[in-house]
């Protein structure tokens, strides 16, 4: 038994000693195809995984603007969904591959340009996701406590730039605009008992604010109907099972849907049936409640004398179109007002243009690419994940997309479309970064940060207490 325990306890040290981690510091091998991936979220890591597996010579360098890896798995996945974060184990395996390097704290487009990457590598893969919101563009949107749900998620997940977001939970009613999974995530976090949240890796600053929350009711408002909701059934089922929380769905929205749902594809049918069932026989009870409101488009945010939001004005919609799942919302003359002290806007994300030389579709908020992930008019540049496809789907969608992008690149390498000679790879870029005084964070450095975060978490009964300050991360990385 003693031997067993010692073996288990020895584990982090064993991890630290893995000799192949030293490759993080190694120089690029001449002649090998070199590929750089911009962004270290699921899209970046799944693309890298496919590339490393499909070609035994290829070297993959993953650039990340933050000192820490994993993108939305760390900063997007809800803290009460730790199972989803298991994908990190696979990403870590990829990062530990001797032909893979992680270069954190490097801002592509700022510290190093796309042109410089194109010169140093055979291929540039854009996998930097989405970093901005769609806005409504209606009066009062700048009122206090009208927040982007994306930033609210960043706030409770410890994203450095959102950690100082001012969130005022001194209100009974919250309106969430949107019927997607992010909308359900933020609603769930607002309504989950604080003791449960305290056992997750939720950031301490958010936990403190949430522990003083007065929120009793969260209303999720969508512009279309129950058959067009974008959230998925797992997240809906969780809402119906929230302790101390009543589900409020209105019968007039669901009248006859039990019959209609019979002809729908299975996923939509089961989702509709669960909403119908919850509507007819409401689940849960308690001091708090969540509510679904349909067919409403916000037209104005009304604020009190302190410029804090006090209500949202909506136009009532009706649906047009024959295909049930893709019906469009059309405004009517009718209006409705819902009072609230906090609004979370969750109506979709947009990507950003990180470098002027990259094409950008400002309407859709994506880098335009063709169906094979090649960025238009940019030979050697590819897209993977949300940056090109737009912000939809679950992790599986991004995984398939990453694998597919990887396969396209492997094919292009084989066919000689991509240049492989006279490229300097990481060495050239490192020199440039050094001149600029950029502290590159390697995966070994990340392991130091990781260790500190986990030990801080352990002391407060959480799986991890994330560092939220970039300077702290850099200090830990260089320790």
């Amino acid at each position, binding site marked *: 038994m003693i031997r067993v325990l010692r073996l288990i306890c020895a584990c982090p040290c064993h991890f630290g000693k893995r000799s192949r981690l030293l490759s993080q510091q190694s120089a690029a091998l001449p002649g090998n195809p070199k590929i750089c991936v911009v962004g270290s979220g699921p899209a970046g890591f799944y693309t890298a995984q496919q590339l490393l597996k499909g070609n035994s010579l290829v070297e993959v360098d993953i650039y990340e603007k933050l000192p820490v890896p994993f993108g939305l798995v760390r900063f997007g996945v809800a803290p009460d969904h*730790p199972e989803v*974060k298991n994908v990190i184990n696979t990403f870590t395996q990829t990062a530990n591959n001797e032909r893979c390097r992680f270069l954190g704290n490097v801002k592509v487009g700022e510290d190093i340009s796309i042109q410089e990457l194109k010169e140093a590598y055979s291929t540039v893969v854009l996998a930097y996701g989405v970093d901005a919101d769609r806005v409504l563009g209606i009066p009062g949107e700048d009122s206090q406590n009208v927040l982007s749900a994306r930033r609210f998620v960043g706030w409770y997940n410890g994203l450095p730039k959102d950690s100082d977001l001012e969130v005022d939970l001194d209100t009974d009613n919250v309106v969430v605009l949107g019927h997607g999974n992010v909308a359900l995530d933020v609603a769930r976090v607002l309504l989950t008992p604080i003791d449960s949240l305290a056992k997750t890796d939720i950031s301490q600053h958010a936990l403190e604010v949430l522990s003083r929350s007065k929120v009793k009711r969260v209303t999720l408002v969508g512009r279309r109907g129950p058959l067009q909701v974008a959230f998925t059934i797992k997240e809906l089922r969780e809402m119906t099972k929230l302790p101390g929380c009543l589900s409020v769905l209105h019968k007039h929205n669901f009248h006859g849907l039990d019959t209609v749902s019979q002809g729908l594809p299975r996923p939509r049918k089961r989702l509709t049936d669960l909403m119908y069932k919850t509507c007819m026989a409401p689940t849960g009870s308690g001091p708090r409640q969540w509510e679904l409101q349909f067919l409403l488009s916000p037209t104005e945010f009304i604020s009190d004398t302190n410029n804090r939001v006090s209500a949202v004005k909506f136009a009532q919609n009706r649906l047009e179109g024959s295909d049930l799942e893709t019906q469009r919302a059309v405004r009517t003359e009718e209006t409705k007002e819902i009072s609230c002290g906090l609004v979370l806007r969750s109506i979709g994300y947009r990507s950003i243009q990180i470098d002027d030389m990259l094409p950008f579709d400002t309407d859709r908020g994506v880098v335009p690419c063709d169906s094979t992930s090649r960025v238009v008019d940019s030979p050697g540049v590819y897209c993977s994940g949300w940056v090109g496809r737009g912000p939809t789907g679950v992790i599986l*969608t991004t995984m398939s997309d990453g694998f597919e992008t990887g396969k396209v690149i492997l094919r292009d390498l084989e066919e000689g479309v991509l240049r492989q000679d006279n490229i300097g790879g990481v060495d050239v870029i490192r020199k440039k970064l050094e001149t600029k005084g950029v502290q590159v964070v390697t995966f070994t450095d990340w392991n130091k940060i990781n260790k500190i975060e986990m030990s801080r978490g352990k002391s407060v009964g959480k799986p991890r207490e994330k560092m939220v300050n970039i300077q702290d991360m850099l200090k830990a990385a260089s320790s």
Partner: protein
Amino acid sequence: MAMLSQRQVLRFLVPRFATCVSRTTISTIPRNLTRIHSLTHSRKRFCSSVCRDQKETVMVYFIQEDGSKLPGKARVGDNLLDVVVENDLDIDGFGACEGTLACSTCHLIFKKKDYDNLPEAPTDEELDMLDLAYGLTEESRLGCQVIVTKDMEGLEVRVPQGIADAREPS
């Protein structure tokens, strides 16, 4: 505790399919203690591999999209995700959430008669995840939820890839 072998102790602490455990030697030290920690914090433990008859095995076959057939030696009592991991079968992205019912990457399609013979029907939670799978059929299951039984000798299951469906219309 003294009765248990070191291997059994490790099996209790770390799911068989956890990637922190080397696929070839189960007794390898876990690379990362977080696995143990997160396991104790997971809301439900779906791993079925603790109490099983270690002696009995059957052969099951995973048929890939290109027609290739991957054989797997399966211990009775393990689940089909365990079988893929233990046999180190090369199926891209299989079991991303490591059997915690948080993804649908271990989607498998059974023959009708095999599906009907499975001892347990899928739970709502399994169906919820399956609804997000590519190429969903009425005979679809998640490998992590299907427990190997003695009468599965020679079982053939299809591994749908469905990459072509990955891009949603936009």
